């Protein structure tokens, strides 16, 4: 009867044992279906087994040796490729977006592919004409041949709105028609995917293309959003697509997540030109399982991506972000107080934003508004454009505004925000502290207006169905707040320079308070309040400024903002969106604090039957009926119905495959054949030949007893990445706890609706 033993089709090699012989068949179509969680333990074990197999084969021939070397190298090779491609794509997005943004205002007729700054690159005009030069032609010049005046203003206003509507409509339509998954920031979903969830197509080719094109369009539309969050999604798509070149990663979902972690780091690395910040972001915010090996790979990947983007030099400033500023001035100790104040304000604004945005998203989800995604995008764009144009600070690109707010007032800045009554007679000194001119006060009012507009518009924008990120708007809000506080401090120091607070450092005429630094700290505070990041945030900001000495102010602000934010509302924006969508994300930051036991949570409850398979007494028909009647992902195998002693666990998918395969390939197998999960061939059977399925049986399932506290069980699910665990009592099988049960239980205990979890 041994000839009927279930043999796997292609690889009948003796080295491959157990479920591993499945590889070939399993891999052809992925082992997990859409919206399932992966079994980390099993996947990692499978990878180790594959690795041992390759090691063993290595002695056989040179070819096997090369294969082994390639396998060992493939991780690094894959992240190298991911870094290269991410850098290039980021360069394309940066250049495309900056060109298209300026298309709202005018065009460079001699070289249409240049944006305004690049167009005026080598103009020899020696005057400042509101940042314009003769090469750059605004739409009003083309239509009414006037740069100033009422008619020109109207034309410019019209074109601004027209282009904004055009770009955003195109983005929304592309998203709707080609890749609906490309909308939003993507970070909550990436977080969920990295925690071991499968969303098919979320990291696919079309998502990559549409997200890249869509983010160019939506940033250019002047909406209150940024391209930094989507960059993480784009990088993850690249990681996912490239991992298919390396079977070690492409075919093993747990291993693939290592590449995705590295890709997420590369995404932030190119978004901010901050490679170390990217690695820490991946570690702190998105990744779930992050061993040291992944840390090094992420580091390498982020480095390569940053290097590539830097050599593309998209902004012509030798850096990979538009708002890179260089600071070197010291700060004085007293300034810590305003910095902490900024942190507190950042926490408040962040929480306010999260609450309002979640409320609006809930409203969109439950009301009729959600049925008109394109119309919503149109309306939001229209309102944004109409409000944004009259105020120069909202009219300009948000990145440029951030740059303006971050930078110090030097001789090169002609903006009203730098309108100080400087005393130029004393020329040998550096730029000294000075009284603010009327331009500064006007700028402050405009900035306050801009901040209110941005805050409100961002609340409505984050969540519309175009690619949209959150970093830039939050940085912008914080930068405005910080700059205003900074100017106030500066004027205080100017007016009370004899006061003991300032007297030590602010000696006569020295520019001791820099509003730009306050803008930076404020930006960090609001971003920290919204996302609840700390370490990665500080490192990103510090890499943006290239000044180590501002780490303490940034840390103080980030910490204050996190404390205040956590006190006001528990979740950061990404966690809040995960909860809103009901993604099955078991947060490793939360603690489970209830005293329930495993026996209370397990399925089935006390008096319901448990769907089990007996080890040697069920026929193929029985099992097929069981498969049809129940929808579990796996079935425990027990000794017999009477003695429910646990033997092992078999997955539904394996069973299906094995049964189908057996029916196809072996004669003498009929519905009446027994299915045997044991070794012994002692079963005396007169009927058709039995089918031996021991190889697909997992003989070492994770079990807990029914008295295990749920704290431990939740911890096991988090730390081991389990998919299910079996509950026993005195060695007898009582039931099963799946990840879904755990998530439901956690929700129930937190008094939330447990039915909202998105899960198959």
């Amino acid at each position: 009867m041994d000839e009927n033993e279930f043999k796997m089709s292609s690889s009948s090699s003796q080295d491959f044992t157990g479920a591993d012989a499945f590889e070939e068949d399993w891999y052809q179509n992925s082992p997990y279906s859409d919206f399932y969680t992966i079994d980390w333990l099993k996947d990692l074990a499978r990878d180790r087994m594959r690795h041992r197999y390759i090691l063993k084969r290595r002695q056989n021939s040179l070819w096997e040796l090369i294969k082994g070397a390639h396998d060992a190298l493939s991780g690094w090779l894959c992240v190298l490729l991911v870094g290269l491609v991410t850098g290039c794509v980021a360069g394309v997005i940066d250049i495309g977006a900056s060109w298209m943004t300026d298309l709202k205002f005018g065009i460079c007729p001699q070289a249409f592919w240049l944006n305004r700054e690049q167009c005026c690159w080598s103009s020899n005009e020696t005057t400042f004409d509101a940042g314009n030069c003769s090469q750059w032609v605004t739409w009003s010049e083309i239509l009414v041949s006037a740069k100033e005046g009422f008619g020109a203003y109207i034309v410019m206003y019209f074109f601004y709105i027209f282009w904004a509507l055009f770009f955003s409509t195109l983005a929304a339509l592309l998203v709707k028609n080609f890749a609906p998954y490309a909308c939003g920031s993507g970070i909550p979903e990436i977080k969920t995917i990295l925690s071991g969830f499968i969303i098919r197509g979320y990291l696919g080719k079309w998502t990559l293309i549409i997200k890249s094109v869509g983010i160019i369009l939506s940033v250019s539309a002047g909406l209150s959003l940024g391209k930094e969050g989507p960059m993480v999604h784009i990088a993850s798509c690249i990681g996912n697509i490239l991992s298919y070149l390396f079977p070690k990663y492409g075919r093993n979902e747990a291993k693939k997540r290592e590449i995705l972690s590295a890709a997420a780091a590369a995404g932030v690395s190119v978004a901010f030109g901050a490679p170390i910040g990217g690695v820490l972001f991946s570690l702190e915010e998105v990744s779930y399982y992050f061993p040291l090996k992944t840390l090094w790979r992420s580091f390498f990947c982020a480095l390569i991506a940053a290097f590539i983007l830097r050599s593309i030099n998209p902004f012509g400033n030798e850096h990979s972000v538009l708002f890179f500023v260089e600071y070197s001035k010291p700060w004085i100790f007293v300034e810590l107080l305003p910095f902490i104040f900024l942190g507190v304000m950042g926490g408040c604004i962040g929480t306010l934003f999260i609450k309002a945005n979640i409320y609006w998203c809930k409203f969109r989800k439950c009301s009729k508004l959600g049925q008109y995604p394109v119309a919503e995008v149109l309306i939001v764009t229209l309102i944004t454009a109409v409000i944004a144009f009259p105020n120069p600070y909202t009219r300009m690109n948000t990145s440029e505004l951030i740059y303006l707010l971050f930078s110090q007032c030097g001789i090169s800045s002609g903006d009203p925000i730098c309108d100080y009554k400087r005393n130029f007679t004393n020329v040998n000194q550096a730029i000294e502290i000075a009284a603010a001119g009327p331009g500064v006060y006007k700028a402050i009012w405009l900035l306050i207006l801009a901040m209110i507009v941005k805050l409100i518009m961002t609340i409505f924008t984050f969540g519309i169905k175009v690619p949209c990120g959150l970093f830039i708007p939050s940085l912008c809000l914080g930068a405005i707040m910080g700059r205003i506080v900074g100017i106030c401090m500066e004027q205080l120091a100017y007016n009370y320079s004899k006061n003991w607070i300032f007297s030590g450092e602010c000696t006569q005429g020295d520019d001791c308070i820099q509003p730009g630094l306050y803008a930076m700290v404020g930006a960090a505070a609001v971003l920290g309040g919204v996302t609840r990041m700390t370490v990665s945030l500080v490192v990103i900001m510090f890499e943006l400024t290239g000044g180590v000495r501002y780490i303490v102010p940034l840390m103080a602000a980030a910490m204050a903002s996190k404390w205040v934010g956590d006190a006001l509302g528990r979740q950061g924006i990404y966690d809040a969106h995960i909860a809103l969508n009901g993604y099955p994300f078991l947060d490793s930051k939360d603690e489970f604090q209830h005293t329930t036991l495993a026996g209370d949570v397990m399925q089935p409850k006390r008096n319901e039957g448990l769907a089990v398979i007996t080890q040697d007494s069920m026929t193929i028909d029985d099992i097929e009926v069981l498969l049809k009647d129940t929808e579990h992902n796996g079935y425990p195998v027990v000794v017999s119905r009477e003695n429910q002693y646990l033997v092992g666990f078999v997955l539904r998918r394996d069973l299906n495959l094995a049964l189908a395969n057996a029916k196809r390939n072996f004669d003498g197998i009929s519905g009446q054949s027994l299915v045997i999960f044991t070794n012994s061939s002692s079963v005396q059977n007169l009927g058709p030949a039995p089918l031996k399925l021991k190889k697909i049986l997992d003989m070492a399932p994770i079990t807990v007893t029914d008295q295990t506290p749920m704290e431990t069980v939740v911890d096991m699910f988090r730390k081991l990445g389990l998919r299910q665990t079996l509950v026993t009592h005195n060695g007898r099988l009582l039931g099963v706890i799946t990840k879904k049960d755990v998530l439901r239980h956690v929700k129930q205990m937190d008094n939330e609706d447990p039915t909202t979890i998105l899960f198959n």
Partner: protein
Amino acid sequence: MFRYLLIVNLLVCMANAQSYEDKRCKCICPSINSVMNNSQEDNDNDRILVIANAAQTRCDCDSVILPKYADKIKGKEQEFCPRCECKYENRNTTVIKVVVIIVIWIISLLSIYMLFLNLLEPLLNKRSKQNYQEHLDEDDGASIHQEGGSSHNLPMVNVNVSRNNVLNRVTNQQDKWKRQVQEQRQRIYDRHSMLN
């Protein structure tokens, strides 16, 4: 299409003739009045902006500003120059050009394909449905899960079988993709179970 490409190329060549250097040294200085002790109110437009084609090491006030304004400043160089800000910048116009043209191409291709899918294809489908009656029962792609159902029903009378196969495979892939997008759309826009 080819003609259009040619025109674009021509434009590109013409524009190349213009002087767009990839390196510059940009210096900004306050107005000269500020050091000449003139009591005039200095205003923004009096500031000096010089863009020169200097090497990175020679991008400073001494070698960029002074030769031009030496006669006006006269003796005040030591006071004037520290106030100037000189920045050396470089860029690559070719990369910018290529990238922007690629972006335009991608966006126009996607838009055309989108228009095709939304406007032309329903028309074509209607016509082919009239031709092949057997297609009528499966016009709703979303509900059908046995992929390639339509391909088996296609009359295989065509002599050029291999070509037909390739075509079928492409059509199958496209149908599969369309179904996936349809599913995503339902999940996001109709059921709101994701990405809210």
